C-alpha cells in the first residue's frame, strides 16, 4: 500500500513537471505510455507509417497543451488516449476525403490490403472475454467507432450493443480483480 501511495505521488510529481515543460518528464511519460498509445493508433488507422506520424503528433499536442490537463478529472493516460483518438480520426477523415476525390478503386484495394497486413491480435484480459464482448470493446476503444457506428458494424440493435459494452466492462473488472487477488496471494507467500 505504501508503495502504491508513493507511486501515485511520483506520478503527480511527474505530471507537474510535465506541465512545467520539463523534457525529462515528457521522456518518462513517453516511455511509459507510447506503446499503449501506439497500440491504439495502429489498430485504429491500420497503417504503420501514418501511425508513427500520429503518435508523434499526439505527444507534440500533449506537450503544447499540457496546461489543459486537469488531474482531478481523470488519469493522464485517458487524456493522452483522447488526444490520440481524435488525431487519428482526423487523419482518417482527411484520408476518406482524399479517397472520395481521387480514383476510388485504387485506394480501396490498398485500404483493404493494409487492413489484412496489419491485423494485430488482442492480448491480456480483453482476449479472455467472450467474442462479442471483446469485439464490442475493440470497436469503440481500438477502432475509434461511436456506439452508433459500432452497433451497425456488429449487426445488433443499439440497446443490445450498449449492454454488451456494459457487460464487457464488468467482466474486465472481474478479470483484473482476480489477477490482483492472485498477485497479493503470491506476494503474501513470498514474504
Amino acid at each position, binding site marked *: 500500500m505504501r508503495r502504491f501511495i508513493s507511486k501515485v505521488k511520483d506520478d503527480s510529481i511527474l505530471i507537474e513537471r510535465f506541465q512545467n515543460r520539463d523534457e525529462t518528464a515528457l521522456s518518462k511519460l513517453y516511455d511509459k505510455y*507510447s506503446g499503449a498509445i501506439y*497500440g491504439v493508433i495502429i489498430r485504429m488507422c491500420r497503417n504503420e507509417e501514418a501511425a*508513427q506520424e500520429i503518435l*508523434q503528433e499526439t505527444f507534440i499536442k500533449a506537450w503544447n497543451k499540457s496546461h489543459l490537463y486537469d488531474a482531478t*478529472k481523470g488519469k493522464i493516460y485517458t487524456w493522452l488516449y483522447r488526444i490520440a483518438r481524435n488525431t487519428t480520426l482526423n487523419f482518417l477523415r482527411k484520408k476518406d476525403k482524399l479517397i472520395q476525390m481521387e480514383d476510388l478503386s485504387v485506394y480501396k484495394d490498398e485500404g483493404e490490403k493494409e487492413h489484412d497486413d496489419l491485423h494485430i491480435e488482442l492480448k491480456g484480459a480483453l482476449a479472455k472475454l467472450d467474442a462479442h464482448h471483446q469485439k464490442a*470493446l475493440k470497436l469503440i476503444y481500438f477502432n475509434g467507432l461511436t456506439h452508433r457506428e459500432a452497433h451497425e458494424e456488429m449487426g445488433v440493435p443499439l440497446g443490445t450493443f450498449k449492454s454488451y459494452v456494459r457487460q464487457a*466492462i464488468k467482466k474486465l473488472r472481474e478479470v483484473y480483480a482476480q489477477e490482483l487477488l492472485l498477485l497479493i496471494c503470491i506476494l503474501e507467500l513470498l514474504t
Partner: protein
Amino acid sequence: MKDRNTIIESGMLEMYLLGLLPDEQVAALEKMLADDAELAQKYAEIEQDFENVSLENAVQPPNFIKEDLFESIRQEYTDVKELPKEATPQTFLWIAASLVALFMITSLWMFTQWNNTKEDLQVTQKELNNIKSQIQNLQGDLESSRLLAAIVEDPNTLQYAMKGNAKIPGGFATAYINHEAKSAIVNVQKLPELPADKTYQMWADVEGEMINMGVIDKSKNVVVMNYIDEATSLNITIEPRGGSDHATVEQLVTNVYL
C-alpha cells in the same frame, strides 16, 4: 440529474472516457464525479481497466519516433528564440504588421464613412420630415384660405369684427357666420399668443346659456367652429389648455352680438 446507478448503467462513464459524451453532458457529469466519491471510484476503476487493456495491448513504436519527437519540440524552441535574429521572418512580420495596419486604417476609414453616411441620411430624413410637415401645414393653410374665400364670397355670409377687451389689448378676431350653409368660421390671426397652458375657446349665447363652439387652434389662421342655431352673441374666453365644459365668463376677451 440522474442518479449514480442510472449513470453507470447508461454507459455515460465510458462515453466520457472515450471523449464521446456530448459537451452539454460533460459539465454535469464532471460535477457529479466531483461530488460523488463512489461514482468517482467507479470511473477511476474503468479508467484503470482501460489503461491496463492498453498496456497489455501495447505495440512498441520504433525508437526514431522518440528522437523525432524531441527534435521537433527543440526545433520549436529554436524557432521561437531565433525568430528576431532572422531577417526573413522579421521582414515577413513587418509585411504582416503593415497589412494589418493598412486593414485597420481602411476599416476605420470605411467605418467613419459609414457613420457619416448614416448621419447624412438621418439629417436628410429629418429635412424630408420637415418638408412633409411644411407641406401639410401649407395644405392646411390652403384649405383654410379656400374655406375662407368660399365663405367670404358667399353673399349669405355675415362678417363680425370681434375687438378684444383690456385682457388682450390690440387683439381682435373676425367671425364669418352663414345661416344658410350653417357654418361658422373665425379668423384668429390677430389674437395674441397665450401661455402654453391656456387656450382660446368660442361660445354661442343661446337664451342666456353659453354653448361651446369649440377650442380655437391657434396654429391655424382660420378655424372652423361649430355652428350653433339661434345664437344671440359670439364670445371668446381664455380657458385652461384643452378647453372647458362651461365658459369662464371672467376670462371673456371679446364678444359680439349677432
